[in-house]
């Protein structure tokens, strides 16, 4: 059954464009999406995800599954880095372990929207409030990561060895992508409450254009991911295994929690994908600033070069079949 789902997933435009980008690198085509165009699509996607999530949240209200789901999501983003840290310490020092762990505790917005497209394609409904979970899972993992550094390596070799908490909270809560996502969520929420006619006028931009822009961005992500692969070899076999096995483990955890929350299949998949995905936006930027002792190529090659493609191509349908097994579709 999984292989059928995987094929169905692979044959959608976003995943096909992702492959187109990946193959471009392997066959050494000079196809290139020059900076800052990827930034444009990245900003656009965050704005649109947030805005749409906000208005869905307004529609769905704060009824049963919303609050507990969001709280469990935050909890997962606190627990997962701890588990990852334990695993990573087998091979890596505190700095690298904490930085990689933080990335896996946090989320990838593009993996999330690919999962949404997958669900739409399968005709499985899901709720907009999951975007709130997405938005609120970005920051906690960063704080856990930095806490781990503080506890695990009390005396840091580098000159400025005191952890500046203000700076860390700042990075965790106010980094560009988290800020834009949460801000757009609020704007969507407020607009839906006060100004429904404005929603309609936003729809062509945040709604209709979304799928195409997602494809364009995934083309670039394919290029970027494939370019990270050679550097992954330097990172060693342990990290390569970690980048595949850890997401699956996190997904299993996620499924259990989703079942406990009695989430419907669509929301359950999104919850699982949040657990299984790893950050390549907010967390690396924050780690570069606050834990420069960690090798950035480690946390970037793994999240972007391996975990991201794995989730996009195989992970999502795999997690779906997991969800299907655990959570019977209610009709």
């Amino acid at each position: 059954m999984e292989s059928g789902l995987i094929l169905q997933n692979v044959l959608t435009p976003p995943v096909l464009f992702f492959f187109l980008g990946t193959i471009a690198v392997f066959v050494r085509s000079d196809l290139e999406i020059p900076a800052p165009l990827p930034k444009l699509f990245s900003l656009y996607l965050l704005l649109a995800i947030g805005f749409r999530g906000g208005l869905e949240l307004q529609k769905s209200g704060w009824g049963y599954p919303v609050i507990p789901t969001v709280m469990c999501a935050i909890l997962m983003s606190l627990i997962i880095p701890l588990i990852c840290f334990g695993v990573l310490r087998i091979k890596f020092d505190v700095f690298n372990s904490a930085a990689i762990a933080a990335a896996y505790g946090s989320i990838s917005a593009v993996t999330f929207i690919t999962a949404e497209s997958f669900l739409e394609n399968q005709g499985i409904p899901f709720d907009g409030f999951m975007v709130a979970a997405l938005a609120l899972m970005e920051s906690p993992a960063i704080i856990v990561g930095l806490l781990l550094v503080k506890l695990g390596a009390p005396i840091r070799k580098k000159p400025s060895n005191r952890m500046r908490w203000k700076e860390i909270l700042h990075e965790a809560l106010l980094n560009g992508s988290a800020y834009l996502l949460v801000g757009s969520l609020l704007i969507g929420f407020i607009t839906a409450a006060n100004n429904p006619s404005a929603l309609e006028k936003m729809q062509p931009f945040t709604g209709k254009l979304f799928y195409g822009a997602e494809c364009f961005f995934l083309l670039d992500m394919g290029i970027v991911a494939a370019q990270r692969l050679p550097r992954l070899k330097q990172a060693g076999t342990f990290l390569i295994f970690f980048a595949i096995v850890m997401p699956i483990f996190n997904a299993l955890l996620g499924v259990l929690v989703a079942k406990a929350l009695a989430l419907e299949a669509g929301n359950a998949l999104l919850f699982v994908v949040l657990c299984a995905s790893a950050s390549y936006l907010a967390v690396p930027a924050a780690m570069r600033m606050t834990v420069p002792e960690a090798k950035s190529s480690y946390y970037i090659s793994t999240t972007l070069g391996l975990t991201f493609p794995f989730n996009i191509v195989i992970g999502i349908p795999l997690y779906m079949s997991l969800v299907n097994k655990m959570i019977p579709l209610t009709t």
Partner: protein
Amino acid sequence: MKRLDLIFGERELTAMLESLEAVEVPGYTVMKHVTGRGPERVVSEDMEFTGLGANAHVIVFCEEIMLEKIKNKIEPLLNYYGGVAYVSEATPL
């Protein structure tokens, strides 16, 4: 006069410029979106969108006596975050 070339991560740009202003350099020029490789890491253009940023290249034309002050101010930053600083001769046209 001297020419100082500073190359370091774009995310440290604000801190670096504040340091330069603190010692009252007569001016500076900034080039962003610079990439490269140093002893510590490879900085590539395609990672700019992630918020990691590229490098910045800052040029300062100033009197020789100012260099010592600049050095004291920015050395901690360069040591902590990486980056290079080189000095050459320069005369106004």
